């Protein structure tokens, strides 16, 4: 392979696991994007900045050449593409799809969550193999997400022939193999996986859309973002992922570097545990929202690459509204609200952020200072990602940063994910019966118009009740060497190397 067919990528960390059943992380998403192929995809379009992005209005065939949805919106039938081959050379059939479904269902993780929580499926009978190239999924309630869901990054189809070679008695689903290796019909497969060091992707020569232009992707872990920029500048790497806004600003001034920017679906927010005093008081939550110096943060932390978020729903998704967002920096108002809640002299609390996240640390310190103006004393607690997650899942962390996105471009999906009191990832434990009802209704409703109105209402209520301190949409930026072309953006904010060339 010549140098122009190899891409050197530096990112903060290698994927924790290559298995799509593993909890989703940014690093994991990117690997999945490249080593798993899904049944359906969105069509692509070019956004005003010249980047290729997904067109949420058009769903096309992926591994399924076509699909059809029953008129009652209660089942979807996939017609699989013929002649699709994995990197191991195995041809895809309905058996692969069914085995993937079985595995996902039995592992009770990501797949299972989608099927039971979003599609409300109750038993595996919902999945049917019609013939060698046809598979059908039936759901109990009508759902507008029935097609959309299958675009999701975590629902790739596994090459069951290859995977089954690695099955053992106590590991019937080849989890050990799939957490460190790949078996799918994707453009790349894993030729080397050294966690904490590097991952090497090689192109699948049989990929159904034709082999990738870049034959080898070498992903190196470089935890320090400034090192990634320095390396990119020195020409030691082609792509530097996850730079801080300040570094992005710097990179833009370097002629050998090209920075790609997209206003994506991220929201950065400070979640509060709504079950825990004093955050059980809506006034307290609102007060904190009034204390955030948004323009200053936008300027000094995000270097003006970000926009404030004014809704729980991503601004690029349909049904987004910010018309009722009242929170401007207003210390007097905040104090008044705190007094009303009974915290005239403020209170003491803890704020958790992840180790190795300079941006969160920076923001934490700024917020600590900002909150202190109303007598709110914040202890900063830096924790390894896993410990932090453990603590806020258990509900023992009063405040913590969340930078997250919902990868399905649908307001009801997003709201269900983050706001529904039933959701596992509603870490703020926000609970509002009306909101819950509206979301649940939208999940099974097929009336687009009514759904949109309901969702706007949900946004207004949530903004008012402020389960989070709303912060920013940081956007998504990628710095590459000027030689690199073909940037594209997908909802999981992960790069698809298939699109790139040098």
């Amino acid at each position: 392979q010549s140098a122009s067919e190899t891409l050197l990528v530096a990112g903060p960390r290698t994927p924790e696991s290559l298995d799509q059943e593993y909890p989703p992380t940014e690093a994991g998403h990117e690997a999945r994007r490249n080593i798993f192929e899904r049944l359906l995809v969105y069509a692509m379009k070019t956004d005003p900045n010249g980047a290729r992005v997904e067109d949420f209005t058009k769903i096309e065939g992926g591994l399924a050449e076509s699909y059809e949805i029953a008129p009652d919106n209660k089942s979807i039938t996939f017609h699989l593409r013929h002649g699709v081959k994995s990197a191991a050379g195995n041809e895809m059939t309905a058996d692969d799809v069914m085995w993937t479904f079985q595995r996902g269902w039995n592992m009770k993780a990501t797949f299972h969550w989608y099927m039971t929580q979003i599609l409300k499926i109750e038993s595996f009978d919902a999945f049917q193999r019609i013939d060698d190239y046809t598979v059908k999924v039936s759901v109990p309630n009508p759902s507008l997400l029935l097609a959309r869901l299958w675009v999701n990054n975590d629902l790739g189809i596994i090459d069951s022939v290859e995977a089954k070679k690695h099955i053992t008695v106590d590991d019937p689903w080849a989890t050990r193999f799939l957490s460190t290796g790949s078996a799918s019909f994707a453009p790349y497969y894993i030729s080397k996986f050294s966690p904490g060091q590097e991952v090497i992707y090689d192109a699948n020569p049989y990929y159904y859309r034709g082999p990738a232009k870049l034959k080898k992707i070498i992903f190196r872990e470089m935890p320090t973002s400034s090192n990634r920029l320095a390396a990119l500048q020195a020409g030691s790497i082609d792509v530097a992922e996850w730079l801080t806004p300040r570094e992005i600003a710097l990179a833009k001034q370097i002629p050998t570097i090209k920075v790609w920017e997209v206003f994506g679906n991220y929201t950065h927010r400070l979640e509060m545990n709504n079950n825990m005093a004093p955050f059980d008081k809506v006034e307290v939550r609102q007060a904190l929202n009034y204390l955030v110096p948004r323009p200053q943060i936008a300027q000094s932390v995000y270097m003006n690459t970000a926009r404030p978020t004014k809704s729980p729903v991503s601004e690029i998704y349909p049904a987004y509204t910010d018309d009722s967002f009242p929170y401007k920096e207003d210390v007097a108002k905040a104090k008044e609200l705190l007094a009303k809640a009974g915290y005239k002299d403020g209170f003491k609390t803890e704020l958790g952020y992840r180790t190795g996240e300079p941006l969160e640390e920076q923001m934490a310190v700024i917020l600590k200072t900002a909150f202190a103006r109303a007598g709110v004393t914040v202890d900063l607690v830096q924790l390894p990602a896993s410990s932090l997650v453990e603590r806020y899942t258990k509900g023992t962390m009063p405040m913590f940063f969340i930078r997250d996105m919902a990868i399905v471009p649908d307001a009801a999906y997003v709201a269900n994910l983050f706001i529904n009191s039933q959701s596992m990832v509603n870490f703020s434990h926000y609970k509002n019966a009306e909101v819950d009802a509206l979301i649940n209704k939208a999940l099974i409703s097929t009336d687009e118009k009514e759904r949109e109105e309901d969702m706007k209402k949900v946004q207004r209520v949530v903004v008012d009740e402020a389960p989070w301190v709303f912060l920013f949409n940081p956007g998504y930026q990628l710095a590459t060497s000027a030689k690199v072309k073909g940037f594209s953006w997908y909802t999981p904010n992960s790069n698809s190397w298939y699109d790139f060339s040098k």
Partner: protein
Amino acid sequence: MLTGLRRFQQMLPRSLQIILPRLLLLAPQMFGVLFVTFFLIRLLPGDPAVLLLGNMATPEAVAQLRERLGLNDSIWVQFIAYCRNVLHGDLGISIFTSHPVLTDLMERAPATLELIFYAMILTVAIGLLLAVVSVVRPGGFTDVATRIYGLAAGAIPDFWIGLILIFVFFSKLGWAAAPFGRIDAMLSEPPYVTGFYTIDALVAGDFGVLHSAAGRLLLPVITLAVVNAGALMKMTQSVFGKVWASPFVRHARASGVPERVIIRAALRNSLPPIITIVGFLVGFLLGAAVLVETIFSWGGLGQYAVQAVMNSDYPALQGFILVAAAFILVVYLIVDILYELVDPRIRV
């Protein structure tokens, strides 16, 4: 029985007489280390099973894993199981990398060892040379310079000097190689022979890689050496200085023995304590490597340890501490043996 053993021992050559008992001592020491690492990790907050399975684990899965890991057994049963595992080379699975910890450690060890190896060579060279010169030519420029250096070196934090070196020689002057990783990312590592890139590249005859690897080694090695050579120098100064002032040196001079021969003899006499210090320094360098590797993204054991702490990757941390302690014990063992071998006064 005991006297028989003793008689047998006395029949062996002196070197074996020294080495064998020390080796026997290693076993209980290692046992102690196992004991400490095991209970240290037991003190850590959090259920290992939960940590291993991640956040989305179901209670059944956790219960199952607890069963499989034997977490429900008594602590002593667990300890015995742990010892058995370690003896079989099973240090557990890293939560972060999902690899066996031993594999991870083996993979990263050469990077750290290469760093420590060259740092040690440079440290010893600087330390001994300065010490000898300053003692043999007292009052001279080197004498004063070494005194200042000796004080300053002990006060400089290695992580800080590393950063300063990067700033000056990479960012500003652009003389040094990039401070991330062991070779240029464009190059592929040389075929594995020793794991030392410099040596492997030489074996493979790949001078591009050799050049890159040597260049990358430069700053971290200097960082480690500059900080640690001061300590070695100071101690050598005092040891060598004492020997240099001792009657036998004066007597040799009075007997007309050439100065060069006297220096060599005096160094030979200072060797035992110097060996001890060097051994101690190796242990110290392993700790220092943790910091320096982080700064230079070295990808060795040190960085692995830091990641383990950051990620609450307890099996990995436990494995690292165990291996580090074992390494130190072996170094101390070698030091003790060498010490006794070079000093004929020590009775066996």
